[in-house]
Structures are given as structure tokens and as C-alpha cells.
């Protein structure tokens, strides 16, 4: 495993770490950070000073604005500097201004959130962080150097042999110092990344907007499904139950052998069939157990309703985000329906687990295979459903089977 950044480098074997370039790169990064901070303090003082003096003249405001925009420059510098100790490039959070010209650029930049985050980072590094950089660098260099020159300035105070031992210990001190230097550099870079990294509200705003509106649509469907389910339950289902009950009571009152017995029990059977029908419909619209108990329980119920026997191997620690649960549930239900309709399988297996922020689902069957998405089975619909939650679906179905539907859905909680 190679280290990708300073913090990961700390976990290398000490022998490898100490001969690697990481400690030196960290040192350079921190020294640069200190210099950058001090330069910032100087430049801001000058700009704000000039701005205050010249505020009487309108031109003074230009200096204020320049001070505000200093963050943009510092941010760019920081993104460059970070490459010293982090192989993952920090992307530019700024968008391209819509038109040419300085004024357009200015107006655009001042409206961007990223500009203000960069300014806050600049302030933080000028007021606190650069001093800490300087302190860490100084201590890390001062101690080994002091050890090294001990024989010179301690001459006459302590026996020469003692100071010689100190001088010999200098490389050890250097090795020890490598750790705090690299650690602070790594922490510093992580802070910078946290503040400066692009967020969903700067770059790709349009893409984010699209994703959001799609998510909104999915959520709206979900709300609608639940409403329909609730209405059916509170309305039609209740009345049918009551009807069935009244018919049952009527049958008790009717003497046996009466002409009404036949029609009454026929009516009751019809009510029962309607209830069963409605139940199936409602389960298709929105399974209650999914809302109440989550994906694992709902898949258990789905497996129980499957005409083809199903083995379940679902390992989920807890609830997942609603949209993930709903998408995953319907995908499995539709996949099982496909198994029952087309595969001729004797058995299906559903396995599911979450790993590294993704839900992995597999639906296997031992049927005849040869499932073809282009032939208009529900497979395209499955893929579409998975796509609405940024997931992906893969299918393997050679002629003769077995068929495997593999689904991955990101579920960052």
C-alpha cells in the first residue's frame, strides 16, 4: 500500500517512512504555509490601510474589494501547495464567469460562496494556522540542530564526551521530529480540504439541481404512494371489512334453509375476494412493513409471497435512507416476479449487504437463463428504477442459466 497523503504516510513502517520524502515534503508544506500566512497578514494590513486612507476617494473601496478577493489567490495557492503532500488533487470550486471583462469577473466572484469560504480560510491561516506552522517547523528543526552543535556551545561546561553523545543523538531527534511535522501537515491539509473543497452549491450546480429535482420527483412519488395506500386502507378496506362483518351477522339471523342463505354467503365471498384483491393491490403500491420495519423485513415478506421458493441472506445493520429502501425493495420484487414469470426456476436467492457506503443486492435463480433486456421484460424498468437513486444494475443470464441480477445503490447516510 502506498501512502496517498501525509496522514496515510504516518502509518507506514517507521524505517520506510523516515527514508521517504514525506517528512521533507511536509516540512516544506508547513514552511510554505507559515510564509504564506505572514505574507497574507502583511498584504491585508497594507490593503486595508490604503483602503481606509483612500476611502475618502472612491478608489479606496477597490482596496477593500482586493482584500476580500485575496482569498481567491490564497485558495489557488493552497490548491497548488497541497499537491506536495496529497496526491488527490483538490478541484477548483469556482465556476467560469459568464462574460468577459474584469467587472463581470468581480461581480461573479463576489457572489460565489466559494470566494467567501476561501476568505475565511485565508483569515484562519493568517491569524492562527500559520503561527502554528511556524512553531512546529521551528521546534522540529531547532532541537536536532541544537543537539548537533552541542559540542560547540557546551565546550567547557560539560565533558566533551557528553556533548558528543548529544551530537550523535541529533539524527534520532530528527527522526522523532519527522512525526509531528508530518502529522500537523496532514491535519492542516485536511482542514484546508474541508474548507476549500467544492460543495454541491458551487461547481456543477446545474448537475446537482438535476439530481435534486430527480430526487424530489422520487420523493413526491413516494409521498403519493403512501397517500394512496392510506386512502385505500382507511376508505375502501375499512368499508369492505365492515360489509363482510354485517353480512356475517345477517347470516346468523337467517334461519338455516332460508332462501337468503345462498345469496348472503355468495355476497360474503365476494366481499372477501374484493378484500384479498385490494390487499394485493396495496402491497404493490406501498408495502407497510417496509415503512415500519425496513428493507430486511420487507424483503422477507416479499420472499414469503413469491411463488418460487426464495433463500434470503440479508445482512443489514439497520435502516437505510428511505429512497434506497424503496428502490431496493421494488427492484427485488420485480426481479422475483420476473423469476416467477420467465425463468422456470426452482429456487431463487436474494442476498444483500452494505459495504463502503453502498448497498449491494443480488437476485439469483437457477432457471433457464437467456433474459434479454432488449426484449421488453421488466429489466429496463428495473435499471431505470435503480438509476433514479444513482445506482447501477448488471445482469448475467447465459442461455441455460443461472440468472443473476446485481444491483448497487449508494446509501451514504
Amino acid at each position, binding site marked *: 500500500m502506498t501512502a496517498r497523503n501525509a496522514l496515510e504516510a504516518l502509518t507506514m513502517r517507521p524505517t520506510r517512512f523516515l527514508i521517504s520524502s514525506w517528512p521533507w515534503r511536509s516540512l516544506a508544506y508547513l514552511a510554505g504555509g507559515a510564509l504564506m500566512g505572514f505574507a497574507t497578514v502583511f498584504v491585508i494590513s497594507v490593503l486595508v490601510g490604503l483602503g481606509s486612507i483612500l476611502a475618502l476617494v472612491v478608489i479606496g473601496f477597490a482596496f477593500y474589494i482586493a482584500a476580500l478577493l485575496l482569498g481567491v489567490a490564497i485558495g489557488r495557492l493552497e490548491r497548488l501547495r497541497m499537491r506536495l503532500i496529497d496526491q488527490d488533487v483538490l478541484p477548483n470550486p469556482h465556476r467560469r464567469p459568464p462574460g468577459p471583462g474584469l467587472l463581470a469577473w468581480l461581480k461573479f466572484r463576489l457572489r460565489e460562496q466559494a470566494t467567501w469560504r476561501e476568505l475565511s480560510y485565508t483569515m484562519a491561516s493568517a491569524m492562527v494556522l500559520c503561527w502554528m506552522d511556524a512553531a512546529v517547523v521551528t521546534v522540529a528543526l531547532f532541537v536536532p540542530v541544537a543537539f548537533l552543535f552541542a559540542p560547540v556551545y557546551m565546550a567547557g561546561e560539560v565533558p566533551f564526551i557528553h556533548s558528543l553523545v548529544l551530537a550523535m543523538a541529533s539524527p534520532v531527534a530528527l527522526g522523532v521530529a519527522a512525526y509531528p511535522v508530518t502529522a500537523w501537515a496532514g491535519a492542516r491539509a485536511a482542514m484546508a480540504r474541508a474548507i476549500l473543497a467544492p460543495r454541491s452549491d458551487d461547481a456543477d450546480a446545474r448537475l446537482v439541481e438535476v439530481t435534486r429535482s430527480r430526487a424530489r420527483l422520487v420523493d413526491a412519488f413516494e409521498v403519493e404512494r403512501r397517500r394512496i395506500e392510506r386512502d385505500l386502507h382507511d376508505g375502501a*378496506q375499512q*368499508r369492505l371489512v365492515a360489509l*363482510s*362483518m354485517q353480512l356475517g*351477522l345477517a*347470516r346468523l339471523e337467517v334461519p338455516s334453509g332460508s332462501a337468503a342463505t345462498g345469496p348472503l354467503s355468495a355476497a360474503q365471498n365476494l366481499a372477501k375476494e374484493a378484500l384479498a384483491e385490494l390487499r394485493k393491490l*396495496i402491497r404493490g403500491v406501498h408495502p*407497510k*412493513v417496509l415503512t415500519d420495519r425496513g428493507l430486511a423485513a420487507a424483503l*422477507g415478506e416479499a420472499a414469503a409471497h413469491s411463488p418460487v421458493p426464495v433463500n434470503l441472506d440479508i445482512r443489514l445493520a439497520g435502516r437505510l435512507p428511505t429512497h434506497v429502501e424503496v428502490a431496493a425493495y421494488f427492484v427485488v420484487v420485480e426481479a422475483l416476479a420476473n423469476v416467477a414469470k420467465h425463468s422456470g426456476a426452482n429456487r431463487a436467492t436474494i442476498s444483500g449487504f452494505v459495504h463502503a457506503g453502498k448497498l449491494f443486492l443480488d437476485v439469483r435463480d437457477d432457471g433457464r437463463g437467456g433474459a434479454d433486456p432488449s426484449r421488453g421484460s421488466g429489466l429496463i424498468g428495473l435499471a431505470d428504477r435503480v438509476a433514479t437513486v444513482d445506482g447501477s444494475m448488471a445482469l448475467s443470464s447465459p442461455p441455460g442459466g443461472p440468472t443473476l441480477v446485481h444491483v448497487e445503490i449508494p446509501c451514504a447516510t
Partner: protein
Amino acid sequence: MPAAGVSAPGAAVVGEPERGGPLRVVIAEDGLIVREGIAGMLRRFGHEVVAAVGDAAALIEAVGKHKPDVVVTDVRMPPTFSDEGLQAAIALRTADPALPVLVLSQYVEQTYASELLDSGRAAGVGYLLKDRIGEVEEFVDAMIQVAGGRTVVDQEVVRQLLGRRRDPLQRLTPREREVLGLMAEGRSNTAIARTLVVTEAAVAKHISSLLAKLDLPPDADDHRRVRAVLAYLRG
């Protein structure tokens, strides 16, 4: 093919209902027409409805106040319309493991049935589909069974459980599977014999043979037997 007797009335009632006089019942159901319907029906059969309420909080309060012989509750209740009724039933049985509870559900959900069966002591529990209310006499009988401390599980649940555990059940003959389904519904040997139109001795033979095949202890007590079978089916 489901093994449970489909033609049998849905409510899985044990053979000889013990008619132990009128029961004091608390009903919890959010739909007014169904709630009043159940209350009227139970009164018609001579039972006393001490409270009929519409939500879980009122149910818990009513049980505390009236100490009924049996509770009949819907799974789904306000305010969230998820499973408050079931949660209330489980809470009540945790507080008083001997309290008989009959839960009515619009849907057959093994998950709910399992949670209910795991609650409280081996006192009466029932889990029935709401549709069974239409089978008026069987429904009232099921309630009496539950009040008498027995277990009543809707045959739909049993059917699904049978469907789920197909592997170890492969070893059973079709007739044994049928008997197992009826056992899981809580029926006595007599009732099973009547349903399948065979002698009780034949039923006993099937039962001991299937219990042996499933490595379950032979148990004369119907109730414990039901529990063992359900526990087995739930895997």
C-alpha cells in the same frame, strides 16, 4: 401448494372452544365502522365490551383501568398509522405477560406475527387477518381461545411460513405437511382428524412421525406443540 387446509374457515380455532361465560373485552381500532361493528358483534354473543378505543394510548389506558379478560386490537392506529397497535399489544404483554391479546391485521406480515408470538409468556395470543371478522362465529371463537390462553395464528401466516421453509419440509409426506399446517394453526388432534376426515389415531401417528422428522420433542400438550411448530417454521 399450501399445506394448510384452505377450505377450512380462516380463523385457526382449536377444536373444542371452552365456553367459559361472557368475557370482558377492550377493543382498539381506529376505523369507527369496524370498531362499532366488532363491539356490536361481541355484545350479540353475550360478551361485555368494557371499552372501545381508537388509538394506542387510549388502549393502554383502558387496559390499565378495566383489566379486561382479552384485548382485541388493530395493528395500525393513529397518529402515525404504522404499527402502534402491535407495539401497544407487545408493551401490554411485556408489562403483564398473562394478558391475552388478539391482534387484527389488514395484511399478513410474518414479521408482526413473530414479534407478537415472542412477546409475553405463553399466555393467549392471536394474530388474524381482519377479513376473518366476517366469519363471525369463528372470529368470536378465536377470541375465546385466546382469552383461554391458547395461540391462534391465521392460516395465511402458517401458509407463508410453510412456503418459506421448504428444504427441511421436503422430507415430509404431503399428508404430514397438511397435518403440520393445521397443527401450526393451533388445532387439536380431534379438530385435525375432523378436518382431514381420518381417525384420531391416524392423526397422532402422522404427528409423531413428522415431529421426529423435524427433530421436535414429542409433546402431548397442544399449546406447547403449536409453539414448537411455529418456532420451527419461523426458523
